[in-house]
Structure formats: C-alpha cells, structure tokens
C-alpha cells in the first residue's frame, strides 16, 4: 500500500468515524460502554463520541451495541477468516500497571475460566541488576509469525486476517505442541474438566472461546466477540489504571476506555517496543516502557499474600538485601 492509498484510507475512515458503525474509536469513547460488560441498552439514550478534531459530542445511542456485522461471533470455518479490514493491536503502558490484577479477574470471569487458569498474567520483571522492577501484563501476543500455528498438526489454531490467533477447541487434539512452541508461555491446557458453562456447546465460537473442553489448549483470544459488540476486551475494560489500550492498526487508534490515542503517534512518542523482538515472531502487543511511573512497583505487592510473594523471590532478592 503506498502513502497515497494510506491517506485515502484514513480520509475515508475519518469520514466514517462519526457514524458508529464499525468504528473502534467510537467504542473507546463511551466509557460506560467500554467499562461495563452489561450496560443497559435503550433508545433515546445519549452517548459521547469523539470527533476527528478531538471534540467530544453526544449522539443518539443506537438500538444495538453491534459495531461489526455480523454481531454474532461466527462458528467453525467462518471463524477462521477474521473481521475484514481490521488489524487489532494492543498497547500496554507499563508505567501505569501496579499489579491490581483486575485484568486477570475480568478475563477469567468473561471466559469462564477456573480460578487458577490465567490467560493473561502479570509478571514482576527486572531487566538487569541496576534496573527497577516493573509489572508486566502478558497476554497472547497474536504474532504475525506465530510459532504455535506452524506446529499444529490439525490446524486447530490459526492466524486470521485481523491479526488474531485463535484456537478451535472442537478440532484441537491436545498434543500441546503449540504450548511447547510458544516462546511466551501463553497457552494453557485444560488438564481437568473446565468449570460448568451456561453457554451450550452448539453456541461455541472460537471467538468467544466458551465453553472450554477438557484435554484441549486455550489462550487469550483478544475478545473479537467483544469487538463486534463495540466493547473492549475484558482485560482492557477491567484495568482500573487504564494501562491496557486496545484498537485497530488500520484505524491508527487504540483506546483504554477513557482515552483514545493515535497508535503510531503513541508508539513513536513513548518509544513503544515489543517483548523479545529478537525472536522474530512479530507480536501485535506493544509495550510502553515503565518511565515516569504512576506507582512504585512495591504498591503492587501490597495486596499479595506473603506466601504468594515467594514467586517473586528471584526478582526481589537484590531489592531487599537485609532479608537475605
């Protein structure tokens, strides 16, 4: 795509951005839409929308929350295609993460996971001896060159045109090769029978990932079913710090539910990077370095029970020399 095309595309997009249909920008702006999972829908209600000039205006709330047609997540083969024209990305602002773990809770609730099943986790990381530790939320990176998809013997996991890597758990044979191949330890296995789900098996879509099946692999799905409804993924909408931005690279916009930013500009200005870039997997999750932090990393340890803090011993041993 040359520059002219890009400009044209952007212009077209800007034209459309006020109409709610298909705009991630719009979804980011209604905090009440993005924040609450079950916002009451009704006509006559007003919602706030951001214009291209950055002004907030109020428009009539549409009858349905559907932003992408079809609203129903597709099943089976249809789910392998992806939403046309979309290029989903996530940006995580490490300066804002204080290990509140609300993202994990939201994700677990939304995907009906067992309490110990974590599709995303918040790690305590320390890059080198002199560095200050920081909290590092890690979702599936939805790589453009996904090592997991390469190795699947039955094509149960696949890469879609909208950047998302999904698993179809009705095809997965549970060989776990993808778990072994993923360099980011993203994938988890249903070792035990998954928790009971209200969703019947015939409503299963790889986009919603429920109900889970024993003996199959599951992982973060970037919540494309929520995007269809104009909602942010559970982790992004659940984060009280607004550390997780989700959006569309084609639209050049990412939102954390309270603010919507230009993706390219954000990455450029805040020196966004991708974790383990050297592995060549081309992730679609970007990190903003933990500079000018809003919190001390220690505040993230406050709510963690003493015995659970053991897992950070490796990182913290140099931080509290008196303890040794």
């Amino acid at each position, binding site marked *: 795509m040359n520059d002219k095309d890009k400009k044209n595309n952007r212009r077209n997009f800007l034209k459309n951005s006020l109409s709610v249909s298909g705009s991630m920008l719009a979804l980011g702006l209604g905090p009440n839409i993005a924040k609450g999972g079950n916002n009451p829908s009704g006509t006559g209600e007003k919602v706030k929308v951001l214009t291209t000039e950055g002004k907030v205006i109020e428009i009539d709330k549409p009858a349905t929350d559907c932003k992408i047609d079809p609203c129903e997540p597709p099943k089976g083969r249809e789910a392998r295609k992806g939403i046309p024209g979309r290029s989903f990305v996530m940006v995580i602002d490490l300066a804002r993460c204080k290990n509140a773990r609300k993202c994990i809770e939201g994700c677990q609730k939304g995907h009906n996971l067992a309490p110990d099943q974590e599709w995303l986790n918040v790690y305590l990381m320390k890059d080198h001896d002199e560095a200050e530790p920081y909290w590092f939320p890690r979702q599936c990176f939805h790589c453009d060159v996904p090592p997991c998809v390469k*190795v699947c013997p039955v094509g149960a996991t696949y890469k879609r045109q909208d950047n998302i890597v999904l698993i179809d758990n009705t095809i997965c*044979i549970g060989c776990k090769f993808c778990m072994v191949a993923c360099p980011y330890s993203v994938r988890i296995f249903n070792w035990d029978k998954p928790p009971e789900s209200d969703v019947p098996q015939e409503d299963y879509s790889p986009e919603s990932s429920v109900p889970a099946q024993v003996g199959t*692999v599951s992982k973060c799905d970037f919540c494309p079913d929520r995007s269809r409804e104009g909602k942010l993924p559970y982790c992004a909408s659940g984060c009280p710090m607004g550390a997780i931005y989700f959006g569309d690279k084609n639209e050049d916009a990412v939102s954390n539910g309270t603010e919507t930013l230009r993706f390219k500009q954000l990455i450029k200005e805040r020196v966004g990077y991708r974790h383990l870039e050297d592995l060549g997997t081309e992730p679609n999750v970007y990190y903003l370095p933990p500079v000018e932090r809003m919190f001390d990393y220690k505040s993230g340890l406050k709510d963690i029970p003493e015995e659970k803090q053991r*897992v950070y011993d490796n990182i913290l041993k140099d931080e509290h020399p008196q303890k040794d």
Partner: protein
Amino acid sequence: MNTHKKINAVNTNNDLLKKLAHNLERPSKRWIFWVIFLILIILFGAYALVRQIIDGQIITGMRDNAAWGLYTANFIFFMGLSYAGALVSCSFQLLRIQWAKPLLRMAELLTVASLIAGAPFILYCIGRLDRMHYLFIYPRIQSPITWDVIAIMTDLLFCIAFLYFTHIRDFARLRDYEGLKVAKWRMKLYGFLALNYKGTPLQKKYLHQAHDIMAAIIIPTAIIAYSLLSWLFGMSLRPGWHSTIFGPYFVITAAYSGVALLIVIMWLYRKSRKLEEFITNKHFNYMAFGLLILGLFYGYFTFSEYITDWYNQTKPMGYLMAKFLDTEQYGWLSLFHIAFTLVVPIIVLGIPWLRTINSVTFISAMVVLALWVKRFLIVVPTLETPFIPIQDIRPEYNTYSISWVEWALTFAGIAMMVLIFTVASKLAPIIPVAEVEDVQEEAKPLIRFKTQGA
C-alpha cells in the same frame, strides 16, 4: 505329502536346529509365570491409561510449563532403540558381516519390539485420544508431528517387513523339521508363514534380494525418521532445543543406546537359553569395540553441544545451564548421565583387562539407563526454563514431578518390549538358523576392478 516334503526339504542337516529347538518346545513353568507377570504389569499400565482418559491429564505430572514429560522422554528413548536396532541389523546384513550373524535376529526384534512398545507413548501425551483421526482428516504437512506420524508408520511397516523376510527361511526349516515337539497349530502356522518357501534357487535369489533392498531402504529411513523426531524439539525457539546439532546428535545417541541394549540382550539370552556356543566372547568383544566408538562419538557431540552453549551464554541458556550444575535441581542426574555415558564406559571398554563379558554388559546396562536419563534431561529442564520467568504459586506448575500414572505406563512399555522378545523367541529360534548355516558370503562389489592379465 511326506515324500514331497523330504525331496524339497530346505536342508536335511538339522544339527543346528536340534540344538535350538528345545527353546521352542513346551514352555516351562518359569516361562509361563514370567509371561503372566509381564501381562500383569501391562494390565496395570492399561488401568492407568483408562484412569488418565476418564479423569483427564490432571492425574499426570504434566502441567502448563512442563507440558511434556516422561511420556515424551520415553517416546524418544524407545524410538532411539528401535532406529538403532534397524541401523545395526541392516548394516550387518548389507556389509555381510559374518561373525554378527547370530546377533541379527536380536537386533531386528529390538527394532520392532521397541517400536511397538514405544510408539504409544506419544499417544499418552495427547489430551483428546477420541480425536486421533483428525490427524488424517485435517492433516497439516507443515507440522513436525505430521512428519513424525508419517515417519513412524513408514518405519514400522518397513521394519516389520524386514523382520518377517528374515524369518521366512527359518519358518520353512521349522515346518520341515519333523522332530519338533510343538502343538499342531504351530506347525500349521509355520507352514503358513513360510509362504511355501522350498529353497529353490529362484526363491533363494529373490528372498536374498528382498533382504538387501529392505536393508538398504531401512538405513536411510531410520536416520530420517529419528532426525525428524529430533526436530520436534529443534524447531522450537526454546533454549536447549533450538540447536542445529540435534538431528545428528539424536541419531548417534540412538545408535549408542541401541548397541548398549543389544549387548544386554545378548547377555540375557546367552544366560537364559544357554547359547554360549553361539554368542561368544568374540561377540562381546566386537560389540564392546562398537560401543566404545559410539561412546566416543557421543562424547564428541555432547561436548560440542554444551561447550558452544556454555562458552558465551545467552541469559535463558545460562539459566538452563545453571540447572544442570545445581545439585538441588538436575545436577545429580546430569552427573549420572555424564558418568555413565562417557567417563565409566570409555574407561572400562577402553582398557583391555577391564573388558569381560560381565563388565561390558553391566556398563551397557548403565549406558542404556543413563541415556534414558539424558532424554529426560532434554525434555523437562528446557520446558521448565521458558523465556518469561515462571511466577506461579503452585509448585507442581513450576517443576515437573512424575506421577504414578506415568510410572505405570512406563513400566508397561518396558514389560511390553520384554514380552514381545519372550514370545517371539518362543516362536522362532533367537539365533537365525538358516542365516548362520549359510556359507560365507562376500558383499557384492559395486565396481569390479579388472585384475591384471584378465
């Protein structure tokens, strides 16, 4: 019928067969108890497998980080033995190595027995055995697992064919041997399996060609198949696996473990079946030389692999290396591996006055055990050392520990292999009679040089 048989009898001189026949006749009580014991172990393994299918893999020691464990290690181990058996028996066959003839059948049985006992281990790793047919309905040729499925099925087919071909002449001999005191159905079975082989020159020629062709096909098949298996690991980006040396390293490891186990099998048959006349000091001596050479190669490969990773370490590689040196983690297992694959075998096999039948056998048994440990050390520590540190409160998610289910199936696998040997050597003599009786034969030269004056 009788006259016909006598006229066409393959060999009227049954001296050798007479010596070996008593092993095929009425099983002793000890033999029956042994078989029942093995079947009980296998049944317990079957029970463990049923429990694993019903309760899910939660009852194994595998968890999200160590998503593979003992099953995978066993799988590589048994496949290695199998490919080694194939390499050894086929090279002996093709190179017309005369002294090795009594060992041929053991090597061929090793190939098939370990393949049948070992291949199911990859299935035990699979979470949804009810979807196994998806491998054929939705195959993806890009996946190393698909390569492996194809390779193992090809190998199994070739090796069973080869094993059968090498049995045909002996089945014919047994069919025609009137002094054999076995049940009627067994005589009928020999007759059926012998495929009407009567030792006519044409039959002889064709069978001989079939042997050679199969042997020539199996050698590259075995090397390719085991390299493909190594790439199950080599293709991953993980530290400790992402190594270009893995293909050849696996092949040499396989050969080393297979030859070591062959020596143990030789010893066991020699003792239990009183085969001192056939499996002699010379055989142990020659096999010990072979083992020593393989051991030196193995040492070279092991050294190459570790020295390059150790000299300049990336961080993840450093963490992995530290685990091999830490006695609280994999230090003792690593030491055991190095001691009994490299140090002790090279000393014992290399110094002539230390080399006795018993010492060579003991060392071989230790090499087999240490190489099994090595397979565990290839699979598990790497999985426990991902790029992103494991920060999980549940200890079973941080380090792998083997559950009773996995042990039960492991012993069932070993019992299966032993059972196949026990039964197969009851059905046909463990020493290939026809092969040993053959006159000395030289390999067919590819290029015939003109001698002077001719």
